[in-house]
């Protein structure tokens, strides 16, 4: 698990140090740099770099991404537009998900697939590749959360392809096609598959996990992701990073797990702050907001909100 991430000269991240938890939530205005952190993690997979990836597109600069894990291990990627400079051989392996409900719905050619793709395309293969008992487990959990359905399955779609189908709770003979199922319901299924990926990534970073989800389900989702992060679900702990604009989501996490992003008015660089949980007045502030971290964030007093 990455304990600390230091990023320099990468996109809008001129000099950022992030302390990370097993589950960490990034909040901030649009274009405040949350996704750039995810992109920085993905540089371990970059083959080459573009000038657009360098702070203010300055030719002579070198981007530098360093990570320290909980055992004191140190990882580093340094690069300029001409290629890599210093780099350790290994870097924690991230999976960045920007799930697209339409991609998730699409039928896929039948093939073994053990990990979700970044936009969720081929999810049906991930589901179908699971052992029967695990599929039943996922289906049971899913139908518990979306009780309009009694079961889910992967069924042939013709031409060697297949797709997910969803059984009506009251009329068992009716199986719904993916295009009849809501975006949120499709995305939720993808989230439930995360613990069963093989091999498990070191880090899962998810953009806007709240999309399409009823606020009541937010607690269930965060609960599942927390289990994933703690190693209670899946073969080993998977660090979870979330980028969100949801105040409701913040109600289900601890203040110490949240990072507030904004851009410096002077330089435009991303600035990341943590809630001042060690400040003696912090608890009083939270109390004024009836212990609602979401409301406190929306007040703007913690940062991570847009402004002129």
């Amino acid at each position, binding site marked *: 698990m990455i304990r600390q991430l230091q990023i320099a000269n990468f996109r809008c991240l001129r000099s950022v140090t992030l302390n990370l938890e097993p589950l960490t939530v990034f909040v901030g205005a649009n274009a405040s740099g949350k996704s750039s952190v995810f992109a920085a993690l993905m540089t371990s997979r970059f083959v080459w770099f573009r000038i657009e990836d360098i702070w203010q597109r300055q030719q002579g600069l070198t981007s530098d991404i360093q990570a320290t894990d909980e055992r004191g291990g140190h990882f580093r990627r340094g690069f300029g537009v001409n290629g890599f400079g210093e780099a350790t051989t290994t870097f924690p392996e991230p999976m960045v998900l920007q799930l697209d409900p339409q991609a998730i719905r699409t039928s896929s050619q039948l093939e073994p697939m053990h990990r979700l793709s970044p936009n969720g395309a081929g999810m049906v293969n991930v589901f179908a590749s699971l052992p029967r008992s695990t599929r039943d487990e996922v289906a049971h959990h899913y139908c518990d959360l979306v009780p309009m359905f009694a079961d889910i399955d992967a069924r042939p779609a013709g031409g060697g392809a297949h797709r997910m189908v969803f059984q009506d709770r009251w009329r068992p003979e009716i199986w719904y096609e993916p295009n009849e199922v809501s975006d949120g319901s499709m995305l939720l299924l993808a989230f439930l598959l995360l613990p069963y990926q093989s091999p498990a990534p070191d880090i899962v970073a998810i953009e806007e996990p709240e999309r399409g989800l009823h606020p009541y389900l937010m607690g269930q989702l965060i609960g599942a992701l927390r289990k994933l992060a703690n190693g209670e679900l899946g073969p080993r702990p998977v660090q979870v990073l979330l980028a969100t604009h949801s105040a409701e989501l913040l109600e289900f996490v601890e203040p110490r797990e949240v990072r507030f992003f904004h851009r410096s008015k002077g330089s435009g660089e991303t600035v990341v702050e943590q809630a001042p949980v060690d400040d003696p007045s912090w608890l009083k*502030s939270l109390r004024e907001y009836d212990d609602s971290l979401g409301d406190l964030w929306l007040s703007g007093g913690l940062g991570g909100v847009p402004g*002129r």
Partner: protein
Amino acid sequence: MSLRVVLYAEGPGEDRGEDVWLPEPGELLPPDSLGAAHHLVARVIASVHTIPTAAIRFVSPLRLQGRPHRGSDLLLTRNLRRLLTFASPPRRPDLAVVMVDEDEQPSRRKDLVASTQDLPLRSVVAVPVREFEAWLIGDHASVRSLLGVTGSPPAPETMARREAKRLLTNWMEAAIAADSSQRAEPRTVQQLRAHLAQQCDLTTLERLAAFQQFREDLRHRLREHSSP
């Protein structure tokens, strides 16, 4: 030395101007976001403290569940306390001024002070009688010179509720109508209110009990600010 102040007033004509898209809470407000109440409060602070008006920096106010506050929020203890709670120390202003109309509720100032006095942020509650506009028209000389008003209106604090508001609105409309025949660019309501707040004679306003109270409260609070 500067003094960071957050102002909560009831209406957009008093505290925000017409532009409701403000900087992040705790960030400095640009000059075009300042309303009549900002100008008047800055002058009153400068009159009771050694700090010059230019060193008084107004910061963007907190929001409630993401929305700008409404006048009624200032009368709800829970919401007012939230608006005075800046959770991040670097964003916290030095002083908060809450300005609400008296609206024939004589205990309003006392009630609001009682409900917020234990908060860490120093605050002053201003309660113009019956309303803020009474202060804007309190110095008749500046009203005459800026709006071209003739005759003498009744004493502001003896007016019925909404009377000062109505009078000022009528006078500003007349001034703007006169502008359109005399000036290339007629002044706006916001400009006229701001000019009144910037030009009125504070000594004249001292005759208004509520204004005097506000000035005394500010003097007291700022003395605390100056002391180590």
